[in-house]
């Protein structure tokens, strides 16, 4: 059924259709609308049987999900940014224990400086946590990926983060095609746990493991994610059979066939990039896009195949690996081992900085001429940066950097071009 609905509510309805049995909630923007909606559905009796638990922290949220999942319940929570960092110990624990929890990450910057707006720093900081990470491009895909995520997680007994851009998707009202309960039930079977806490068959879960077996347990987690590389495209195909639309998969290519320049990105910015590329294609530019849907496991072979005939690749990412440059770029470089093409990293949109078509046109044209530096910070205000660098050079007690720079910029703290 077509609905005009906020992204968060679309996701909440999709979660409800997946029949979760335990939902844990702790508020943090921009995720909050999702759990608010689920809380209301549980309280009204619309979503039953389901326990909705208002916990005292994100660490508790993930811990409650761990206990629930280990007891055989389908468990869900959502978080973002600082909240994800606060639960990190339990995030690693959930994957280490092989518990198929699904969590929405409404991607948001990490402080300091505190910032509530979108970038991908939060979930990418959990790159090696053992969770799978699927990135949604649109609200429709966010909704669909959650349904696929439960199936993927439960088949492999590994947790999945569904990452959707904070505010840009979570708070955007868009038309989505909301599946029926029957469709979801046809696609997603009831959760059948591999391990369960049950007095009928007592097991110990979470025992101490020493050097004699630790490597093997960790390898198994990797082996499962390698299985996921095969399963994710199959799940997308099965999804299409039931729901009639393309959603999910490992990667999406767009106008990439004869492209000499390929842009790689994740999440909602792919829409802006595609619009830009449509305009450039109309002007005769040979340029295309590769959207990464599955960030973990990372589809090395698919990325390599997509770039094989290109002359250059621009990785445009909403994240920064301080001290080296890109996070996504590092993975793309690994896919390119042995292929000779120009590679550019563009860090863009940190802390909600708008990524405009105007800026992308300029950027992509420079890339086509191989005039880009290896690492670019899109639309960086060099004047403000240099002023602060000068201040620090001439004065020991230069004060807090962020506050200085805000003062230099003036009253309009967030410059949206």
């Amino acid at each position, binding site marked *: 059924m077509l609905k005009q609905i906020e992204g968060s509510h679309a996701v909440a309805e999709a979660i409800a259709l997946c029949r979760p*049995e*335990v939902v*844990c909630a702790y508020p943090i923007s921009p995720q909050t609308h999702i759990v608010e909606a689920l809380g209301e559905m549980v309280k009204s009796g619309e979503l039953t*049987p*389901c*326990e909705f*638990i*208002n*916990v*005292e*922290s994100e*660490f*508790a949220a993930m*811990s*409650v*999900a*761990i*206990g*629930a*999942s*280990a*007891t*055989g*319940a389908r*468990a869900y929570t959502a978080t973002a940014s600082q909240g994800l960092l606060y639960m990190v*110990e*339990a995030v690693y*624990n959930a994957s280490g*224990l092989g518990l198929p929890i699904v969590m929405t990450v409404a991607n948001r910057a990490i402080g300091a400086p505190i910032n509530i707006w979108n970038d991908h720093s939060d979930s990418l900081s959990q790159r090696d946590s053992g969770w799978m990470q699927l990135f949604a491009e649109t609200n429709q895909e966010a909704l669909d990926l959650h349904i696929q995520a439960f199936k993927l997680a439960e088949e492999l007994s590994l947790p999945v983060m569904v990452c959707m851009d904070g505010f840009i998707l979570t708070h955007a009202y868009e038309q989505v095609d909301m599946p029926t309960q029957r469709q979801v039930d046809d696609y997603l079977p009831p959760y059948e746990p591999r391990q369960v*806490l*049950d*007095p009928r*068959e*007592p*097991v*110990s*879960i*979470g*025992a*101490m*493991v*020493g050097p*004699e*077996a630790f490597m093997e347990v960790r390898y198994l987690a990797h082996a499962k994610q390698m299985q996921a590389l095969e399963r994710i495209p199959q799940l997308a195909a099965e999804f299409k059979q039931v729901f009639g639309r393309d959603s999910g998969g490992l990667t999406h290519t767009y106008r990439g066939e004869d492209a000499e320049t390929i842009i790689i990105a994740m999440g909602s910015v792919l829409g802006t990039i595609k619009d830009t590329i449509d305009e450039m294609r109309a002007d005769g530019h040979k340029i295309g896009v590769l959207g990464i849907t599955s960030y973990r496991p990372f589809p090395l072979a698919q990325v390599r195949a997509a770039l094989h005939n290109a002359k250059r690749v621009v990785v445009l990412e909403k994240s920064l690996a301080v001290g080296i440059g890109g996070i996504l770029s590092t993975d793309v470089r690994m896919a390119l081992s042995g292929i000779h093409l120009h590679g550019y990293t563009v860090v863009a949109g940190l802390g909600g900085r708008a990524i405009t078509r105007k800026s992308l046109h300029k950027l992509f044209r420079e890339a086509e001429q191989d005039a880009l530096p290896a690492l670019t910070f899109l639309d960086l205000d060099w004047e403000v940066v240099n002023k602060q660098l000068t201040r620090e050079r001439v004065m020991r007690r230069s004060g807090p950097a962020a506050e200085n720079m805000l003062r230099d910029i003036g009253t309009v703290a967030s410059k949206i071009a």
Partner: protein
Amino acid sequence: MSFQPIKFYQTGTFTVGNRLLNPENRSVQSHQDRSNAINSGHRACQGCGEALGARYALDAAMEATGSQLIAANATGCLEVFTTPYPESSWQLPWMHSLFGNAAAVATGIAAALKAKGRNGVRVVAQGGDGGTTDIGFACLSGMFERNDDVLYICYDNEAYMNTGVQRSSATPPAARTTTTMPVGLSPGNVFGQGKFVPAIAMAHEIPYVATATVADLHDLEAKVKRAMEFRGARYIHIFVPCPLGWGTASHDTIRIARLAHETGMFPVFEAEHGELISSLPIRRQLPVEEYLKPQKRFAHLFGAKPNLEVIARIQARADRNIQKYGLLQTEVA
């Protein structure tokens, strides 16, 4: 034919292993069909108070629930010594997740059971004092405040023993730990305000709060069984001496626990819905020196020149416990 003589201690006392008492006076542990929830073969130290307390507590909870019990465990000695991979002492479904989240994991287990309509299966969470009073405190308070259907048991040996005897917020004043060494102007742990979690649990007005020691195992079993009669959040704080961390003899664990009670150093009581309902009376109050002297962690208070001022301050704390919890009366009004 051989003749089995019946000795006095088998009939005339309430010794915890006495199998010849009336059935209602026998301990769970004396039953041949006890669950052995923590089976033999674990790696606890000789004289470990925690192993003893946990065994009695869990077997009592198993009996009370007809073995319909799931346990969540914080990181710590109990977790480590019971699960040397690939062995496990646990004869009930048991889960260890992290140091600071046992209460929240238990909440999740209880929520899952509720969603699945399995109301007959009960949940116990357990941790040491570090996992309870320090790193797990937020999750514990959250579980209390929501009144989740979980019995949380804290085995209090008054320091981080698993990592090598570091101070916790349950470490008593003046005690030596590896992070409160007996050096400088005020040797040992500071005299802080204290953090007595049973009182904090009572402030949450949860259905049931109790303290116990491994010196009175009938009392301990009774409290666990009583706790299982309630639904909602329950808390039992068990005083468990640690020979390694306290510098006491392995065979003195129960004696030290009894002295903690009889000096007033550790008050033993029960509370329901935030109100004190009973205290385990002290038969004859002993001076705190009786409790402190056998423990190497307090050795710096004695010797050629005893630190009378510090001992007096410790005595004042014991006296306050006795007054506050009515330990010299049989009942509290």
